[in-house]
């Protein structure tokens, strides 16, 4: 991240903490897209992603002093908040399983005319089925183009852990897609 952007974020954060509405608007406009994109790739659902994005910035409004600029970038911090919100939301959703979930979950999509489109749909489902810790690193590194260091900040773990989780996640994805032609 360029130093100018760090300085801009520090300045915006300082003004936001002092109650400046425009500074908060600017923070939202600069950082909402990466947060939304992460949530969208994690959930595969644009409505849930929008809700998670809103939750992250509501959290920021109520915890303006919780981010320490010395410990990293504001963008990565907010994506990390999104990850924690999604984890909590997911664990809450686990308690409410629809009655027809078992039948709905096992249905394969109809084959599509466009093979590449079909691959994308299958990949999205395979990613959604990954355990959260693997899904997060695939989304951050393979889909969002984050460095291992940035992913480690978001996932709150060591860089080595990101590498090993990514390796394991790719293997799991390949295994899920074997037999469907995508990973072959």
């Amino acid at each position, binding site marked *: 991240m360029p130093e100018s952007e760090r300085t801009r974020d520090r300045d915006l954060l300082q003004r936001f903490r002092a*109650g400046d*509405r425009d500074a*908060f*608007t600017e923070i*939202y*406009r600069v950082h*909402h*897209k990466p947060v*939304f*994109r992460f949530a*969208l*790739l994690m959930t595969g659902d*644009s409505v849930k*992603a*929008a809700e998670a*994005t*809103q939750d992250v*910035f*509501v959290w920021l*409004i*109520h915890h303006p002093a919780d981010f320490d600029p010395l410990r990293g970038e504001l963008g990565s911090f907010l994506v990390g908040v999104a990850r924690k919100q999604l984890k909590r939301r997911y664990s809450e959703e686990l308690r409410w399983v629809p009655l027809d979930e078992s039948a709905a979950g096992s249905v394969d999509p109809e084959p599509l005319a466009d093979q*590449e489109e079909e*691959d*994308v749909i*299958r*990949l*999205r489902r395979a*990613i959604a089925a990954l355990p959260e810790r693997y899904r997060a690193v695939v989304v951050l590194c*393979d*889909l*969002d*183009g984050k460095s291992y260091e940035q992913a480690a900040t978001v996932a709150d773990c060591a860089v080595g852990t990101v590498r090993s989780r990514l390796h394991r996640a*790719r293997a799991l*994805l*390949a295994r899920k*897609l074997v037999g469907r*032609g*995508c*990973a*072959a």
Partner: protein
Amino acid sequence: MSDRLSKAMGRLSAESAKAEVPPEIEAALLGEFDRRSRRRNAMSWTIAAGAIAASIALVLSLEYPSEVKPDVPAAVVAEVAPESDQPFVPIPYVAPLGPYEQAQVVRMEVPVSQLIAAGLPMRTTDVGAQAEADVVVGQDGRARAVRLVSVSSTE
């Protein structure tokens, strides 16, 4: 990664980059920001008003002790020596003296309950008692600090 898998990753990544957050979320967040700002302002005003009211009440009680002084019985007991060597205790919620501000020390009778309210450690349990105290008064007439000289018990 296989070629098809990485292609699928690329397409999924490109699709997600195009997705837009609904515009009403920004409006909802600004509404939340405004609500929080109003709550914070209201809380600040409440605290400030409380502090001002407390300091006014304290200053009035220290400056006009005769108005609130109950009748003291003839039999009084001195508990502390007339010339006190106790330190001055700053009165809470009052701005401290400026570096060039002149101050006066005024000896006055003050209800013990007011000294307790000002943060002085009092050993007496007789809250109706009167105390003789040295009060530091700033140029604006406000009491800034107080020290105990003696306590006259009603018991």
